[in-house]
């Protein structure tokens, strides 16, 4: 009987701490949960996951190369609500170039960029009194490919 109690205790603790360790770490959240673009796009190491609380806003400073097409996708726990994503110029004015609030908070978008520049991806989630003390994972997936126009120009013959 003692042996059985030992085994059940160990099983219980393994299960409990496994769940906790998963909860603490969001490192892979964007890989596992964000919607991916098609296979012509390549994964960028600028992708990242983070912990968010309701009402929080975070800024991801990224670099986009000239002549490349980018795909940005976000995902988070449903309790965080609609994720707002704004693409901004990285200057004093921080001019908004794209805001997913204008597109019913769509969780992905594409853009083409002509000249290499620094950009800001600002991600925010609404306040929520019910879950205000909880932390949730949020992922930002960034993919890229060479500008399609250039590719087409190079595709001569068959």
């Amino acid at each position, binding site marked *: *009987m003692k042996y*059985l*109690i030992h085994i*059940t205790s160990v*099983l*219980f603790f393994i*299960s*409990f701490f496994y*769940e*906790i360790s*998963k*909860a*603490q*770490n*969001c*490192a*892979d959240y964007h890989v596992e*949960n964000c919607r991916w673009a098609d296979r012509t796009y390549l*994964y*960028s*190491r*600028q992708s*990242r*996951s*983070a*912990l*968010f*609380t309701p009402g*929080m*806003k*975070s*800024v*991801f*400073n*990224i*670099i986009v*190369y000239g*002549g*490349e*097409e980018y795909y940005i996708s976000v995902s988070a*726990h*449903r309790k965080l609500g609609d994720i707002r994503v704004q693409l901004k110029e990285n200057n004093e004015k921080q001019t908004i170039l*794209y805001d997913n609030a204008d597109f019913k908070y769509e969780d992905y*978008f*594409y*853009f*083409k*960029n*002509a*000249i*290499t*520049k*620094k950009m800001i991806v600002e991600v925010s989630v609404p306040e929520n009194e019910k879950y205000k003390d*909880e*932390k*949730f*994972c949020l992922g930002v997936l*960034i993919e*890229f490919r*060479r500008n399609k126009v250039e590719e087409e120009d190079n595709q001569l013959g068959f």
Partner: protein
Amino acid sequence: MYNKTFLSRKIWFSLFVTLLLINCCKPAKNNKEDTTSFIKNMDFPDSIQQRQLKNNYYQFPSAKEMFNYIKQEETLAFNPNLTNPVSHYPRYVDTKSKILNLGIYLADISYLTLYKEINKASEYLEVVHKLYKDLRIEVPFTDQFISRIKDNLNNEDSLVYISEQYSDEFYRYMYSNNKEHILATVSAGSYIEGLYIALNLVDEYKENSSVIQKIAEQKYTFENLYQNLNEFNDDSNIHLTLQYMEKILSVYNQLETKRKPVKTSKNEDNILVIDGGDEFFMSRSQFYELKSLINQLRKEIITKSF
């Protein structure tokens, strides 16, 4: 008889309670994120949470993304003498030089795989594996990766794919195990090596060279790398790398900038097109100043212990 039945009931009851406890802690399959609710009641003095719960992240492309970008337009011939020889590995005895040279070797692997120099790349992977061990970086499935590499030495495409997977595992491991301070220095080492290779692949300065233009654009990456490193400035191993970055940025900050207003439009596929921005111009003297500085810093990193 009575005792036996009683014991059996107790066993079943214990099993039932255990299963109940396990299931109550296990999220439903379709609701995997619910695990995060555990954090609410746990007061972890956990730096992973602190690092993941911040308002500003400085991101930058990998050295491989940078190589791919620079190599796009002009034909840059492969130069086998630009990588740090694997025979230098025994020189790196202290942590600082091991971390910086891990970054150097990782950039060398990216350069070698980009030019499909696979056999040479596999030698570099072995050194990287040794440095991982020295630095107690336990990338999962390392032995499997090494054996897959040995099994595929004649299959270039598979080797490129395997080395990319291995590199992804490394980054995943570093983020998941609160080793971002080490990753920041590794990335700085990789970028110094990447810039060293790019600058030395260019034989001579040409005013309208797109490669030189792309080297100039790396100013942004070094700015974000600096900000990223600066987050860990309480770590003594970071100080030297920060000084390197400051020296490199002092050259980059001299570049002339042409401003074109940023404009957005939609193309025929309804995709956002962003035009304009700051264009950098790198003069002949700035190009050679940067080349000389990077050559000197890189030499310092690969030849001595700190």
